[in-house]
């Protein structure tokens, strides 16, 4: 008779809540009509809050189930909290952003929540196939979301480019998974690791080939140089709230599985991948930061900045066993707060039919809208890595881990490249405070959700920056769950 594998509801609980929220939004959308649809956004936020509460409640659970397919552990739960935070902020800013577009809100919110469900599954996946399908759930939702503003030619184009590059990356990821399956006969991380540790040279060679292809696939997903070319176009063309979700959620999810796959399943291949990832990290930091300097459009500038940040995060992965893992988790938290904040400012500066996305449009905003100026200053300084903001603490942890692991040159070059980044981040502030401009904005009181979002992000950026140790301790505990 058939033996049904053990199933644990706890393992899939966060996923189920998020997917259920998405379904609920779809159903409610079906039966609710009228222009005021903020309710659907609130529904999404409520679902994410419940997911967050469930994740906190599960904090001490450590369980793998579904034939080794999915796990609930602190690593997954940390990312759940991160995705909930990022998702809530993204939904908050969407609620005001959508007023200025003709996007159908029901589709938008349900797809957003479904993409978050994919992220949640990615962080918890302990099987290459589960990971791959979770990635596809997330990606397909984001493909559709980036083209959801159909009247916008730029959004069409962004969707097309994101789709083609994403599908291309899918091919590489899958071929890598197939070769690893061929080398080990398994797809769950535990067995793969076990088999690889004792693999004869020809199987190790095949797994190395698979690892290289996986690396290409991940490179596309996190927009690492030289697989980054799609990112600026897509970031610029997609609706800004989706760009924010892409820059933060997709990247965090990709790094969650990057860390999980490469340290857990492919841990025995670390000698093979370490130097390659280090080289990619260096290239990504340098190219990202230098190209960002040239940008006139704020969304493109943030795209290149997010490429550079992917480079910093990869430095953390190189030093994964010397505190780099925890540093990556902490940095992702920092990045979520400050980057979402920056995108919220971009949305706040835009008006209906007048996106105001050129950096020149920011001229003089600092004096005329002091609150917005202060918020933008916090985010830009934090992204540039000024103390005592959270970006500084994040960089400190990452580069000290790299030094600790013996990658001193990499750390030095990373710090130098981030000095370049100061130039373009401060360039925005210089424009805001030192130039005269005429850009008019909608009053903040008419956009309460955006205001709340800015407030949360700014407070987080400052508070976690000033008191980083407890957040770092959380990240450390979470990463410890992996090994």
């Amino acid at each position: 008779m058939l033996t049904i594998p053990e199933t644990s509801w706890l393992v899939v609980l966060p996923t189920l809540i998020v997917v259920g929220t998405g379904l609920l939004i779809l159903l409610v959308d079906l039966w609710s009509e009228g222009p005021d649809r903020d309710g659907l956004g609130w529904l999404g936020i409520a679902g994410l809050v419940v997911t967050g509460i469930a994740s906190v409640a599960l904090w001490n659970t450590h369980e793998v189930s579904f034939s080794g397919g999915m796990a609930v552990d602190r690593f997954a739960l940390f990312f759940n909290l991160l995705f909930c935070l990022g998702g809530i902020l993204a939904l908050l800013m969407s609620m005001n952003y959508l007023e200025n577009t003709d996007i159908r809100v029901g589709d938008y919110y349900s797809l957003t929540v479904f993409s978050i469900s994919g992220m949640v599954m990615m962080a918890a996946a302990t099987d290459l196939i589960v990971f791959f399908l979770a990635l596809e759930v997330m990606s397909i939702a984001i493909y559709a979301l980036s083209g959801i503003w159909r009247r916008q030619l730029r959004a069409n184009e962004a969707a097309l480019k994101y789709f083609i590059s994403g599908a291309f990356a899918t091919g590489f990821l899958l071929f890598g998974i197939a070769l690893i399956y061929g080398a080990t006969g398994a797809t769950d991380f535990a067995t793969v690791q076990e088999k690889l540790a004792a693999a004869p040279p020809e199987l190790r060679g095949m797994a190395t080939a698979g690892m290289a292809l996986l690396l290409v696939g991940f490179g596309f997903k996190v927009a690492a140089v030289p697989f980054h070319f799609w990112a600026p176009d897509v970031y610029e063309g997609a609706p800004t709230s989706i760009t924010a979700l892409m820059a933060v959620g997709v990247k965090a999810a990709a790094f969650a599985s990057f860390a999980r796959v490469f340290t857990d399943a492919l841990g025995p291949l670390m000698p093979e991948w370490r130097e390659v990832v280090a080289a990619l990290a260096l290239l990504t930091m340098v190219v990202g930061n230098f190209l960002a300097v040239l940008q006139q459009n704020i969304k493109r500038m943030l795209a290149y900045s997010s490429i550079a940040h992917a480079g910093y995060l990869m430095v953390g992965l190189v030093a994964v066993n010397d505190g780099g893992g925890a540093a990556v988790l902490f940095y992702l938290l920092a990045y979520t707060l400050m980057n979402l904040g920056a995108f919220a400012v971009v949305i706040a500066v835009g008006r209906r039919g007048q996106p105001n996305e050129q950096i020149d449009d920011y001229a003089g905003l600092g004096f005329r809208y002091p609150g917005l100026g202060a918020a933008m200053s916090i985010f830009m300084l934090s992204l540039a890595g000024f103390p005592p903001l959270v970006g500084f603490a994040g960089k400190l942890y990452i580069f000290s881990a790299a030094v600790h692991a013996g990658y001193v040159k990499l750390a030095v070059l990373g710090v130098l490249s981030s000095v370049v980044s100061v130039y373009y981040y401060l360039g925005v502030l210089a424009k805001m405070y030192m130039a005269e401009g005429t850009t008019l904005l909608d009053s903040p009181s008419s956009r309460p959700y955006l205001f709340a979002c800015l407030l949360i992000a700014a407070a987080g950026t400052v508070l976690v920056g000033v008191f980083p140790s407890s957040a770092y301790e959380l990240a450390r505990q979470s990463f410890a769950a992996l090994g």
Partner: protein
Amino acid sequence: MSLGVFVVLALFILGSALGVILARNPVRSAMCLVMTLFFLAVLYLFLDAHMVGTLQVIVYTGAIMVLFLFVIMLLNLQTDPEESSATTTLSAAGGLCALFVGLLMYLVGNVENVPEPARDGFGSIQSVAEALFLRLMLPFEITSVLMLVAIIGAVVLAKRKIQ
């Protein structure tokens, strides 16, 4: 399967795959892809994957490729005059094939890993279903979310009326 049959099938597969990327006209590309998929299905039958081979025909050639052709015809795409030249494509294909195959051969080495004769019932519907519904139960369930997302996404993007 004997080596001769394998070589012949492999040549058919690679030939029609080259047709996909070399054909100037999208419909011809699509038909070459259909042929590639069909020959792959035949190869799957030789690999004792009857169920997979049949589903390859039903799902890939019977549904996905028809969707492709439908869209090509709906948009009435013709031969694109600004298409890159066939020699560029062909040399890129040659180079990349050599790269991938060479790299794999270098890493894997020349190992004659001939499989054992297949067990009874291997590749049958029952055995595949057991793997799918027991060991791969979770991925199977995730595909339901995946398809729902794809349906919503496709409808959102392609439906004619905008509010």
